[in-house]
């Protein structure tokens, strides 16, 4: 981060826009109306205020395929690249009818035949036809997802930097781990360190938790405090320049019986997951890695694309058919999760960022693993 709000640099913007326009052509979309922050950042290259949680759909950015013009909801031009001229900016509005009249006036709106949106609300489903009177409204998220799926070289560089900041946060929190500290304080330490490192926009604020000895994944601690003998999971994630960097680790507090064996199981599982991250491999191989290691599949996705928010593939035991159809390709960056649990001991959770290259997987994360017990 700098001392001023800057647009994403030209090469990053150009590579992404080219991919987005190519997918618009492939999906036969004349116009894209985007509301999701990740998509808006992808095509506009403009930093926007980070707000926690999902946002309701609203037309925040409009892309016209024929001219490549970008129209952006932004009341000011700070951080807006110079290829989006002032006349293409429209201000914050609380009245959807005013937004619709802005869209109506965009060159190409009246003649568009197919308009894609990245999500939709019943309200805008009714209003958008007023702005695009000759168009069929279709799903535009598939096109954006296809564009985001493979990272350009500039995107990979941005992801490396985001991961670096996430690892700074993780290290700071691990250094504070001791009996009596609360999960929230650990989260506060982690978020503080990432902000001091220049980024105040987290991917996750659920940053540290005592793993349960009694249940494969529920929260263990009623009062949210760490005790000697706990296995404490850390999930550090930061959105840096719009890109999600993530890393996960688990550290024991003091000595605990059975922990060494659990870490060994995690290592064995990770070896198989790593093997699964080959270019050309079906994503379902990652689910199979758990089975081959004899580990139960955890309830969370065991892999998902890292980029601006979530990207394909999302590999979950709840989406086996999706995982079977999806193939890993060079240029994908995945957050891959290993999760093992032992009754009476707790869980070891570890998350690595993996770049798929034509030569095989490259692990982008480098945080230390627990090898000896900390605290006491």
């Amino acid at each position, binding site marked *: 981060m700098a001392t001023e709000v800057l647009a994403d640099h030209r090469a990053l913007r150009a590579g992404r826009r080219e991919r987005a326009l190519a997918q618009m052509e492939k999906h036969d979309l004349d116009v894209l109306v985007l509301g999701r922050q990740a998509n808006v950042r992808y095509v506009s290259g403009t930093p926007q205020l980070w707000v926690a949680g999902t946002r309701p759909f609203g037309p925040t950015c409009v892309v016209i395929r024929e001219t490549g013009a970008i129209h952006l909801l932004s009341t000011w*031009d700070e951080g807006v690249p110079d290829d989006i001229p002032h006349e293409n900016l429209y201000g914050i509005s609380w009245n959807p009818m005013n937004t619709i009249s802005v869209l109506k006036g965009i060159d190409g709106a009246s003649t568009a035949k197919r308009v894609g949106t990245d999500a939709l609300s019943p309200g805008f489903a009714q209003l958008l036809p007023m702005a695009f009177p000759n168009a069929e409204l279709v799903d535009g998220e598939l096109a954006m997802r296809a564009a985001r799926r493979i990272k350009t070289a500039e995107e990979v560089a941005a992801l490396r930097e985001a991961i670096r900041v996430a690892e700074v946060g993780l290290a700071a929190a691990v250094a504070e781990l001791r009996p009596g500290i609360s999960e929230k304080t650990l989260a506060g330490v982690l978020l503080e360190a990432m902000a001091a490192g220049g980024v105040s926009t987290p991917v996750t604020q659920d940053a540290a938790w005592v793993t349960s000895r009694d249940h494969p994944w529920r929260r263990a601690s009623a009062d949210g405090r760490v005790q000697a003998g706990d296995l404490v999971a850390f999930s550090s994630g930061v959105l840096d320049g719009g890109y999600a960097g993530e890393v996960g680790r688990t550290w024991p507090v003091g000595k605990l019986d059975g922990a060494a064996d659990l870490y060994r199981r995690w290592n064995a599982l990770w070896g198989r997951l790593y093997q699964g991250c080959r270019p050309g491999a079906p994503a379902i191989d990652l689910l199979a890695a758990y089975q081959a290691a004899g580990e139960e599949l955890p309830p*969370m996705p065991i892999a998902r694309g890292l980029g601006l928010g979530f990207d394909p593939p999302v590999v979950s035991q709840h989406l086996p058919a999706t995982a079977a159809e999806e193939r890993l390709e060079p240029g994908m960056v995945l957050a891959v999760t290993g999760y093992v649990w032992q009754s009476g001991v707790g869980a070891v959770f570890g998350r690595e960022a993996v770049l798929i290259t034509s030569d095989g997987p490259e692990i982008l994360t480098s945080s230390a693993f627990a090898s000896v017990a900390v605290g006491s």
Partner: protein
Amino acid sequence: MTTPTSFLAAPSSALDIPETPDLERMRRETGARLRSAMADRGVDALILLGNNSVVYATGVSWPLGDAGLSYVERPVAVVLADDPHPHLFLPFREGASSESGLPADHLHGPVYLEFDEGVENFARVVEDLVPAAAVVAVDELTGAMRRAQPRLFRSGRPADAAQIVGAAKLIKTPDELSCIRTACRITDAAIVDVQAALAPGIRQIDLSAGFTRRAFELGAMASMLEPIWQVMPKNKADGVWTTHGDLALPLLTTERELAVGDVLWTDVSITFQGYCSDFGRTWVVGEEPTPRQHAQYHKWREIMDAVLDVTRGGATAAELGRTATKANGGTRPWLPHFYLGHGIGVNAAETPMIGTDLGDEFDENFVLEPGMVLVLEPVVWEDGTGGYRSEEVIVITEEGHIRLTDYPYHPYGER
């Protein structure tokens, strides 16, 4: 049929707000409000995807994450008009701490509504829960949901659930007020340390770092927006270009070092049990405000006092706006892209919004009722002073209002 529920009376003083929220009662009462809003609109079932709506409808709360990831790993709620308990589909972790409030047969595994396979799985459950003829409302449709519309919404096009949740949320139960007040107290306490650290040479981002750490230590569940410490321009004409020619707000925090005399407009928000705080004050870095800057505060104070004087159950939003404008000498004391004030609850800003481009008619027709919560945030500006902006969080009562915050206005306020 809807279970009849007697609501606790709207509070008339701060004493009527419980010190600690009863979360089970809160969920019961917000649930009853929601089902009553459904009944008013003839809706039999709600499918809710938006994080804030799910918090409101189910009472679960979790540290909200980035939007991008939240689309794929998010809780989903299904609310039925004749069932006091919502159905909840939970991903790993999210809401796990609060899940015990719901019967086991209402808790489901995660659903992935971004994917056709995920929607297919979800539709099978919905078919069991929601009768084919039921009128269904939804707040968001993913692409995969749009492709599966005939299956998901068997009685036809879904209604807009945002309107229904919005109507229910307008009036807060005493336990919701307790959550908002606790969120505000945590925020105010965390800000004390931030303001103490304010000095020339500190970076904007260091204020964010210190605030976040302290807020979490004090029990915040999540930060709701990246903290804002905007350095105001000397003159409006020196500020960044805007679509309306007035001031920009909020501009993003950077690693910029603060200098003596910088005027900061601050804005932060955190959650407690899913309910938001709001905090805004104007600060000067490294020196006392000048007499002209103090005068800005006093003008702001006059406007705020005039507005608070007319703020009570039965007043219209337009009345508050007119009063503020009159106290400001005929000019609206707020930025064109914002408002004089807004509601707050599970969203950091929600209906009612006073003085927006929704227009005068909306404001004339919007009547304040006891139990509504407002954040009032007038803005005054005179070139050369950096202006003044602060926020007050109040609960509307029959007779007037209750303040939920008492953070001082230092270094402004005294000449």
